[in-house]
């Protein structure tokens, strides 16, 4: 194989200069002529009908341009992504359904004026009984939150599929073969917030032709436009999204169904007849945007003494809050954990999406499988404890190997996929070795070290997902006669280095210098539609379109050379920035075939191929103070297999993005008032996160299984990013057990919960 010039080399990020100079432009930095500012009046009741709303006093205030209420929302406007259940949630409705639901949108010359005007909107509510929890919503006499969703359940649907439940193999036999069966009712309730540093920020404007333009802080401009179009009943091409720098996504800036911020901005811009900036406040971001899904679940897992899993069944009730917009998709994606964490082919999955009077749950890094990994690993821990199996042994024997089968319910008709990814048991072993697991793991419930009232313990967890190649991607590459190319893609940068990856792959495939490659802005009018930068798919699915576009472009160059220079296309090749004749080595420069200004464009199209999957293995050591109940992270080790690394420091950064996973287990929690589901942690003092002075020792294993080898991946590069925070929480849970001998299931492991568990253990003695 030819030596790679750019892939795998450390080259400063494209946006680096702008970032360190403070010149990188984010949506909130943009000022459009005549732009006004929007604010949202939000409901103080969890469930109520708006009996009367009078905005006249607000509208009369100097500097106020418009007040939007439910009366301004078209009757057929519902949030939808085209795969959600029956259209039900509206951006503003005559009913409000959670504390924080939008009641009125105010447009004014400044945010301060809008805030003042909000106070003058007079609303009379008729308070309705609310269903605050999954159990309350499923109760027989529960208040109906939407007419369209009887029993407060949103059926699982997907494009052309009306049932995402499945059962395959022989569950009965599988469980009969097991030496132990764990049957565990459990739940996840911490409602972690994606909490991008930049809150969702949108500028909307309508032009005279009726095209709706956005500057949007988003990671997937095409998909965002598609979802806005669906929700507003407009054609895709009439929605234009340009994405400036995106201040973090973690799934929350995909606007995959939850398009509230965009619809708010669009409705305000329409009524005020001017561009409107809607920048969510941090309080709204924490209390009225979206959280990780809460759920109740039952996990049943059969395991043999040798660590082999023989059967696995998962039942989930997932909380959508007031808008079922993507949960069914998250659950289908989450179902992948059944065959990533168990090698059994006897599997059963059943799920329901439950509507409650609560802030919507939504897309979040670890899309469904972070939740299932947490739940299944609880059962794995119990089984391994009972049978005294080393957990590393369990992950090793159950890990998926190349050519092995795994079940992806979204690959309709060919659900049993055949893995083209590396053998994941190698990753498990290599990461364990570097962590010195054999030396540090002293057995279940046995501390690694005791120092007074401090106990240390180690834990580990594995996760996998199969979204790498899924869904469509498209890239266009345009070459000019100076041999420079412009890459047109809507894959937006949100920190992962996706655009640097494209630049390297294109330079490599076209054999031109890196500085000849320019990546155009992520703009839906300037690039073909694409599912977007998410799910660790941009390197593989996106990268493949870049490669295919390059190949198409080279073909077109050869045809153009034939036309201009009367030599058959198949005698030409594009090498080193020149057209070269294969037969005699004769070289011609591009101006000979392309008279400026002129260009040729290659297109790369990818329909979405599965069979690709990615795993992440993590080890942690924690220290538990059994007097105070404080749990601290001492050491962390991540293992990834990149296939082939593209951006070394970019990869390091992504691997090191595990803290939200650790802190889902250690400190992050959305606290709801049990009386009305008001969020009590709606600021960054009360919502706990980690800063720079509280980090543990950390190391990583980076394998490159496809380096210098043939593979289906572009130059062997797979993408590793999304799962990097998924195994962290379950690993902490195991380490906490090994340090103290107590099992704490409820995230986060606060001192109160740990002390309560320790006390209970003492009492049981």
């Amino acid at each position, binding site marked *: 194989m030819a030596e790679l010039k750019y892939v795998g080399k450390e080259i*400063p*990020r494209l*946006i*680096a*200069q702008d*970032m*360190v*100079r*403070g*010149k*990188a*432009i*984010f949506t*909130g*930095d943009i000022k459009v002529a005549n732009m006004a500012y929007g604010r949202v009046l939000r409901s103080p009741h969890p469930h109520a009908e708006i009996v009367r709303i009078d905005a006249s006093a607000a509208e009369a205030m100097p*500097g106020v341009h418009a007040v939007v209420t439910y009366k301004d929302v078209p009757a057929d406007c519902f949030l939808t992504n085209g795969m959600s259940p029956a259209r039900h949630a509206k951006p503003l409705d005559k009913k409000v359904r959670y504390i924080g639901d939008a009641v009125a949108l105010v447009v004014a*010359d*400044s945010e*301060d004026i809008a805030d003042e005007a909000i106070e003058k909107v007079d609303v009379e509510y008729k308070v309705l009984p609310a269903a605050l929890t999954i159990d309350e919503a499923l109760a027989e006499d529960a208040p109906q939150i939407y007419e369209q969703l009887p029993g407060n359940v949103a059926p699982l649907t997907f494009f052309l599929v009306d049932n995402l439940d499945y059962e395959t193999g022989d569950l009965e036999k599988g469980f009969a073969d097991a030496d132990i069966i764990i049957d565990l009712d459990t739940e996840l309730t911490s409602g972690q917030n*994606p*909490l*991008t*540093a*930049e809150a969702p920020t949108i500028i909307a404007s309508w032009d005279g032709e009726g095209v709706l333009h956005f500057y949007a802080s988003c990671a997937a401009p095409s998909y965002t436009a598609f979802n806005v179009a669906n929700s507003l009943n407009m054609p895709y091409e009439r929605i234009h999204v340009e994405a400036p*720098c*995106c*201040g*973090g*996504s*973690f799934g929350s800036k995909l606007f995959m169904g939850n398009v509230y911020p965009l619809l708010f901005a669009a409705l305000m811009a329409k009524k005020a007849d001017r561009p409107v900036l809607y*920048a969510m*406040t*941090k309080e709204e971001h924490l209390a009225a945007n979206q959280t990780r899904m809460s759920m109740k679940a039952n996990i049943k897992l059969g395991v043999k003494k040798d660590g082999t899993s023989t059967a696995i069944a998962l039942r989930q009730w997932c909380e959508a809050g007031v808008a079922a917009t993507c949960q069914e998709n998250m659950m289908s994606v989450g179902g992948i954990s059944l065959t990533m964490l168990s090698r059994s082919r006897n599997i059963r999955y059943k799920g329901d999406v439950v509507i409650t009077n609560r802030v919507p749950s939504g897309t979040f890094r670890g899309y469904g499988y972070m939740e299932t990994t947490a739940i299944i690993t609880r059962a794995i821990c119990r089984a391994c404890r009972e049978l005294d199996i080393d957990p590393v042994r369990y992950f090793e024997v159950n890990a998926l190997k190349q050519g092995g089968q795994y079940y992806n319910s979204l690959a309709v008709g060919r659900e049993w996929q055949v893995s083209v990814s590396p053998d994941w048991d190698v990753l498990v072993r290599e990461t364990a070795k570097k962590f010195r697991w054999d030396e540090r793991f002293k057995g279940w419930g046995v501390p690694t070290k005791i120092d007074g009232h401090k106990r240390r313990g180690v834990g580990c967890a594995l996760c996998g997902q199969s979204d790498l190649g899924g869904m469509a991607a498209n890239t266009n590459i345009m070459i000019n006669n100076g041999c420079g190319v412009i890459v047109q893609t809507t894959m937006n*940068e*949100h*920190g*992962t280095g996706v655009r640097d990856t494209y630049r390297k792959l294109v330079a490599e495939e076209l054999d031109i210098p890196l500085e000849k490659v320019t990546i155009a802005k992520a703009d839906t009018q300037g690039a073909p539609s694409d599912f977007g930068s998410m799910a660790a798919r941009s390197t593989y699915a996106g990268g493949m379109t870049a490669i295919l576009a390059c190949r198409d472009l080279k073909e077109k160059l050869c045809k153009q050379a034939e036309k201009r220079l009367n030599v058959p296309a198949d005698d030409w090749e594009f090498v080193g920035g020149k057209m070269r004749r294969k037969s005699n080595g004769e070289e011609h420069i591009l101006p000979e075939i392309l008279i400026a200004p002129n260009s040729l464009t290659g297109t790369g199209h990818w329909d979405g191929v599965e069979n690709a999957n990615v795993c992440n293995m993590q080890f942690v050591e924690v220290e538990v103070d059994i007097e105070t109940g404080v749990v601290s992270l001492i050491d962390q080790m991540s293992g990834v297999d990149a296939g082939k690394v593209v951006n070394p*420091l*970019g990869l*390091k*950064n*992504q691997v*090191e*993005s*595990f*803290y*939200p996973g650790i802190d889902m287990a250690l400190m992050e929690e959305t606290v709801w008032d049990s009386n009305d589901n008001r969020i009590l942690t709606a*600021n*960054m*003092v009360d919502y706990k*996160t*980690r*800063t*720079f*002075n*509280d*980090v543990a020792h*950390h190391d990583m294993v980076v394998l490159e299984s496809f380096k210098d080898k043939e593979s289906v991946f572009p130059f062997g590069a797979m993408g590793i990013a999304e799962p990097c925070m998924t195994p962290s929480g379950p690993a902490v849970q195991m380490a906490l057990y090994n340090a103290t001998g107590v099992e704490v299931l409820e995230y986060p492991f606060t001192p109160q919960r740990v002390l309560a568990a320790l006390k209970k253990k003492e009492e049981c003695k």
Partner: protein
Amino acid sequence: MVKEQLRPIITLNVNGREYELPVGEGVNEISPSETLVHTLRDRLGLTGAKLGCGQGVCGCCTVIMEGKAIASCVTLTLDCEGARITTIEGLADTATGELNNLQQAFVDKCGFQCGYCTSGIIMAAQALLDENPFPAEAEVREALAGNYCRCGTHYTAVDAVMTCVEKNREV
């Protein structure tokens, strides 16, 4: 006839340049409740400082005032009369545009991901380095205790600062 108008003004010195801004309740005037981050971003066009939490917790809006790193979202502009303020736009060499050592280290070590928190992190670190060019890693981490980063630059951003410290030693 000559008209006279008495207008209260405030003087800010930002990145070595003096700005005189009118004070009052009008649209183009600095009101008593206006915070420095808005003045910098909306009036002076210096958008490098970002508005994050609005409560002085996340550090995205950090700038240096009179040698100290401050959260400009909880600093009233009217309290900054005469103050010398440096924003991230003021770090590079004004004549040549050359990055300072800290900025260059963030480029070389890829000390950022999405970048929204980065200018705040650089400014907090710069304030420390101005005071102590050779801090230990623990001191750097303490100086960044008020900076929130969701992407996970908890290691590479500190690597970048420490790289700059090493460079300071060479000089």
